[in-house]
C-alpha cells in the first residue's frame, strides 16, 4: 500500500493557474457566438435631470446599428432591479433597467444601442440626442437630511431610505458609571472596488427551447438564477447562468445589475446573442461603490481604560438606488461595532440616505471595515485621552478565551477566539520592545515615527439561513466516476480565491487519490447546479463542508458494496483513504475496482442503488468570527506629508489552513485594499454630482511600490461552526489593516497634538494636519 500523501495543510501552487498563465482561460469578453451583437449603454451626464425627450433616429441610421432602445421600450418588459433586504420603514424608488422620466445619477443608463460591432455601438451613442432638463442635485448625505434639501427622488418626498436602531444592554447605566465620555466624529470615505476586469455579459436565448443562457462576470450565478426570472419572464428551470473566469469581484459583483437583465431581454427580443462589456469609466461610475458612512461616536469609559459602552449616530450615503444588499451593509457595521471587546451596552442609530450618486453595496469587508476602523480608532483615542498604553486598553477589554461562545453587546454570538494570543504573537513578531525603542530614538531626532495596531474580529462564513434573505447554506456534489476519477460540483463561485485547488486538496486526502484525478466545477448553474455562491469569506468553510459531507455519504455507500464484493460483513470493512479492507483477512479493494462495479452494476447487493454520487446541503449553526492583530510602523515626511510604512506585521486567525500559500495571498491582497483605503483611495463627486474619480488616473489603487515587506503569522483557533473549524480569510486583511495604518500615522503625528485625521491619509491631508498643528511652517 503506497503511503497516502497529505495535501491539506500544505502550501501548494494552484491547479487553475496553468490556463491563466498561458492566457487560454475564458473570461466573458472572450466569448464568441454566431451572430453575436454588441450592446453599448448611453448614460446620463447629469446627476439629476428630467428627460424631456430622446431622439434615436440618428443612431438608428448609422450603418451597422441594428436597433436602439430607451426606457419606454424596455422597462415594462424587464421588471425592476432587486434589493433583497427588508426593513420596516424602507422607502424605495422603482429601479427600472433604463431611466424613465428622470435620471438620478451620473452614469444612469438612459438608452442602449445594439450594433454589429463594438466600435459602431459606441459611435452610435454619440448620435443619440437627449433633451435633459437639469434639476437640483444633492450629493452629501448630511446635507440631504436638512430641511429644504433637494430630493433625490422627488416622488418619495424624503431622502431617508430607512432608519435602523440597534440597542443592547443598559446604556444609561453604562454612561452613568463612566468616568469619561469620549466623543469622536469619523468619516468612512466612499471607495471604488475596481476589479481589473470590468463588468460584462453575453446573453443568448434559444427560441425553440425558450431557454436563456447568461454568461456574466459575477460572483453569484446561482443567486442571479433565483432572482432573474422575475425580471425577464424566463422561468428558473429554463435559465442557465454562467460565471466563466471572473476577473475580480470584491463584493461589487455580488449583485444583479440592470445591464444583465437588459441584455437578456434584448437577446430574446432580437433573436440574437447580445454582448455588453463596460468601459473602465462605466465601471468606476456604475458598479456599486463601498463604505460612505459618517458617524458621531461616544464612548463611556472608566479611567482605568475599561470601555463600558459605545453610542453611534451614523449616516450612510447609499446613493440613488437600492442594489441587492445596499441597506444591509451599514447594519453589519452596527452588528460588529463592539469589536473584540466585552462591552456592557451599545447603541447605533443609522439613517440610510439617498443622494444623486451611484449606489453603495458590498465591497470587501462590507460594513465590517467601518466597524473595526471605528472601534480600533476609538481604542487609540481612549488611550491617548487617558494617558494609557493602547495595548493595555485593548487587553483590559478583550473577551477572554474561556468566555466563548460569547454573546456580544451587539447581539451576535462569537464562536471562538483568543484575541490576547494573536496580539501577543504579533508583538513578538514585531519585536515590540525594540520597535518602541526605535520610535523613541526617531522622535528624539525629530522624526515623525508612529506605531499603530488593530486587534480585529470580523464575521465570515455567512451564514445560517436565519440570517440571510435567500438561504445561508451551501451545496456540493461529489461523483466518483466509472474510471475512478472524481468530479466535484460546488455551489460556491470562486473568482480568484483558488477553491479548485483547496477543494481538490480536501477531496484528494479523503479519497486517497491524486489531485490530478479530481476536477472541480463551479460557476455554471447547468453543471454546478445549486448553490449560494461566494461572498463574505464563506466558500471554503461552507462549500468545503458540503463536499466533505458528500464524500462521507459515498464512503458509507461504498462500504456496503466493498463488503459485498469482499464477501465479508459490513461491520468488518475498514476504510482508509484509497481502499477498503477487512482486517484479519488479505481482502482489500480499491476505489478503481469499486467504481467500476458500482456503475457496471452486475455484481451489487440487492436493493443497492448503482453509482457513486452524493450531494449535500450544509446548513451552519452560526457564522465564524476570524480575528487577529495587525501592527504597523510608519515614518511621516514632515515636509511632504508622505507616509512610509517601515514595518508591517499581521497575525491572523482564520482557523486551520488548507493551503497556507492561498491564505497568504488572500491576506496580502486584503491588506493592499486597506493600504489603498488608508492612504490613497477616495471616490470623489463634485457638488454637481460629477464623478471625478472615473479612471485609474484619478482613483489611486495600490501599485507594487506602495507595498511594504510583510511579516505574516497565524494563530489557529478552530471554529465550532463547521466540522473543519475553518473561519475564512478573504476579508481579514481589508478589515484588520486599515485602522492599524491609520493608528500608526496618527501616532506619528500625536507629538504635534493631532488626535484624528479622516482617511485617506494622502500626503496633502497629512501635510495639512501637520501645518495646522505646527506653529512654524514646515521647512520645505
Amino acid at each position: 500500500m503506497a503511503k497516502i500523501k497529505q495535501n491539506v495543510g500544505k502550501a501548494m501552487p494552484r491547479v487553475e493557474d496553468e490556463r491563466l498563465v498561458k492566457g487560454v482561460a475564458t473570461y466573458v469578453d472572450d466569448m464568441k457566438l454566431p451572430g453575436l451583437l454588441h450592446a453599448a449603454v448611453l448614460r446620463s451626464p447629469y446627476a439629476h435631470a428630467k428627460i424631456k425627450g430622446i431622439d434615436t433616429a440618428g443612431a438608428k441610421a448609422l450603418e451597422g446599428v441594428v436597433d436602439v432602445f430607451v426606457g419606454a421600450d424596455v422597462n415594462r418588459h424587464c421588471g425592476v432591479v432587486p434589493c433583497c433586504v427588508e426593513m420596516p420603514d424602507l422607502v424605495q424608488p422603482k429601479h427600472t433597467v433604463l431611466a424613465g422620466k428622470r435620471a438620478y445619477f451620473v452614469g444612469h443608463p438612459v438608452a442602449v444601442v445594439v450594433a454589429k460591432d463594438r466600435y459602431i455601438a459606441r459611435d452610435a451613442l454619440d448620435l443619440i440626442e437627449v433633451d435633459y432638463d437639469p434639476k437640483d442635485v444633492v450629493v452629501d448625505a448630511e446635507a440631504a437630511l436638512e430641511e429644504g434639501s433637494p430630493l433625490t427622488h422627488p416622488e418619495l418626498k424624503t431622502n431617508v431610505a430607512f432608519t435602523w436602531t440597534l440597542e443592547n444592554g443598559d446604556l444609561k447605566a453604562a454612561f452613568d458609571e463612566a468616568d469619561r465620555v469620549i466623543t469622536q466624529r469619523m468619516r468612512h470615505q466612499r471607495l471604488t472596488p475596481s476589479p481589473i476586469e470590468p463588468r460584462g455579459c453575453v446573453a443568448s436565448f434559444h427560441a425553440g427551447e425558450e431557454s436563456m443562457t447568461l454568461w456574466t462576470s459575477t460572483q453569484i450565478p446561482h443567486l442571479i438564477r433565483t432572482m432573474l426570472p422575475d425580471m425577464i419572464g424566463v422561468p428558473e428551470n429554463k435559465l442557465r447562468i454562467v460565471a466563466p473566469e471572473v476577473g475580480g469581484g470584491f463584493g461589487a459583483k455580488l449583485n444583479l445589475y440592470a445591464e444583465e437583465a437588459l441584455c437578456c431581454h434584448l437577446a430574446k427580443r432580437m433573436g440574437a446573442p447580445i454582448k455588453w462589456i463596460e468601459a473602465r469609466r462605466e465601471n468606476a461610475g456604475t458598479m456599486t461603490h463601498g463604505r460612505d458612512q459618517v458617524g458621531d461616536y461616544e464612548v463611556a469609559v472608566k479611567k482605568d481604560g475599561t470601555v463600558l459602552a459605545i453610542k453611534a449616530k451614523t449616516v450612510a450615503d447609499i446613493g440613488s438606488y437600492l442594489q441587492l444588499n445596499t441597506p444591509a451593509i451599514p447594519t453589519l457595521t452596527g452588528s460588529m461595532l463592539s469589536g473584540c471587546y466585552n462591552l456592557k451596552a451599545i447603541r447605533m442609530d443609522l439613517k440610510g440616505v439617498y443622494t444623486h450618486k451611484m449606489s453603495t453595496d458590498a465591497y470587501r469587508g462590507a460594513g465590517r471595515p467601518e466597524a473595526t476602523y471605528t472601534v480600533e480608532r476609538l481604542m487609540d483615542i481612549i488611550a491617548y485621552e487617558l494617558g494609557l498604553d493602547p495595548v493595555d486598553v485593548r487587553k483590559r477589554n478583550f473577551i477572554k478565551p474561556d468566555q466563548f461562545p460569547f454573546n456580544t453587546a451587539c447581539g451576535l454570538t462569537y464562536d471562538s477566539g483568543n484575541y490576547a494570543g494573536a496580539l501577543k504573537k504579533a508583538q513578538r513578531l514585531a519585536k515590540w520592545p525594540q520597535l518602541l525603542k526605535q520610535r523613541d530614538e526617531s522622535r528624539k531626532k525629530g522624526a515623525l515615527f508612529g506605531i499603530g495596531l488593530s486587534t480585529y474580529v470580523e464575521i465570515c462564513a455567512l451564514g445560517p439561513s436565519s440570517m440571510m434573505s435567500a438561504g445561508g447554506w451551501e451545496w456540493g456534489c461529489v461523483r466518483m466516476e466509472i474510471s475512478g476519477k472524481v468530479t466535484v460540483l460546488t455551489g460556491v463561485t470562486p473568482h480568484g480565491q483558488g477553491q479548485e485547488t483547496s477543494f481538490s486538496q480536501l477531496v484528494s486526502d479523503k479519497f486517497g487519490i491524486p489531485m490530478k484525478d479530481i476536477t472541480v466545477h463551479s460557476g455554471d448553474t447547468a453543471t454546478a447546479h445549486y448553490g449560494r455562491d461566494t461572498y463574505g469569506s464563506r466558500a471554503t468553510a461552507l462549500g468545503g463542508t458540503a463536499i466533505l459531507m458528500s464524500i462521507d455519504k459515498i464512503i458509507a455507500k461504498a462500504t456496503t458494496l466493498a463488503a459485498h464484493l469482499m464477501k465479508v460483513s459490513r461491520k468488518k470493512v475498514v476504510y482508509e483513504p484509497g481502499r477498503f479492507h477487512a482486517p484479519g483477512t488479505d481482502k482489500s479493494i480499491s476505489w478503481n475496482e469499486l467504481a467500476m462495479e458500482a456503475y457496471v452494476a452486475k455484481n451489487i447487493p440487492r436493493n443497492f442503488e448503482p453509482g457513486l454520487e452524493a450531494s449535500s446541503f450544509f446548513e451552519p449553526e452560526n457564522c465564524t468570527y476570524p480575528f487577529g492583530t495587525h501592527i504597523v510602523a510608519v515614518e511621516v515626511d514632515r515636509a511632504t506629508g508622505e507616509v512610509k510604512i517601515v514595518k508591517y506585521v499581521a497575525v491572523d486567525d482564520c482557523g486551520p489552513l488548507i493551503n497556507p500559500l492561498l491564505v497568504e495571498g488572500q491576506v496580502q491582497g486584503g491588506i493592499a485594499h486597506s493600504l489603498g483605503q488608508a492612504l490613497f483611495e477616495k471616490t470623489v463627486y463634485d457638488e454637481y454630482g460629477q464623478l471625478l474619480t472615473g479612471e485609474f488616473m484619478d482613483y489611486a489603487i495600490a501599485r507594487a511600490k506602495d507595498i511594504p515587506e510583510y511579516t505574516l503569522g497565524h494563530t489557529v483557533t478552530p471554529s465550532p461552526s463547521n466540522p473543519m473549524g475553518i473561519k475564512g480569510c478573504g476579508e481579514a486583511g481589508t478589515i484588520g489593516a486599515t485602522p492599524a495604518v491609520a493608528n500608526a500615522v496618527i501616532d506619528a503625528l500625536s507629538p504635534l497634538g493631532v488626535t484624528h485625521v479622516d482617511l485617506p491619509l494622502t500626503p496633502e491631508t497629512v501635510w495639512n494636519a501637520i501645518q495646522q498643528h505646527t506653529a512654524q511652517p514646515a521647512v520645505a
Partner: protein
Amino acid sequence: MKTLVSITVNGTVHREEVEPRTLLVHFLREHCHLTGTHVGCETSICGACTVLLNGEAVKSCATLAVQADGAQIETVEGLADGDKLHPVQEGFWKCHGLQCGYCTPGMIMSSVQLLKRCPNPTREQIAEGIEGNLCRCTGYSHIIDSVEYAAKKMGS
C-alpha cells in the same frame, strides 16, 4: 475605409484589412483570436493589455493596429515552448503570483521585458518595473516573488 496590415504575432504572419482606428488589442483578440491579452481600462494605465512590440512592452489598448504594421508582436500565448512554460509563467504559478488571473498576461509580459533589461533585479527594481501594471487581487508581494523566481531560474 480599411487598411491592410501585416503583423507577425507569436511568429505567425497575420495579413488583415482593418479599420485604421482598430486598436492593437482588438486586432489580437478579434482578428487573431488570441484572447489572452485583456482590456482593463482602455487608457493605458492598468497594463492588462501589455504585449511586446519588437521586443518592447507596449499597452496594446493604446496602440493602433496600423502602428504595428510590419512589427513582431509577442503575446502571452507565445511565451511557452509547447508544454514547457516560460520561467516567468512558471514563477507566477509556483509563487501564487495570480488570483483572478485577469491582469496576469500583461503582468507576465511586463516582467519578461523587465528581466531582459535587468536580469537580476532587486525587489524594489521589480516593483518599479511593474509600475505600469495594476493588480487588485494579490497585493503584489507574490508577484514580486514570482519575478524573483524567474530571474533566478533564467540566470541558472
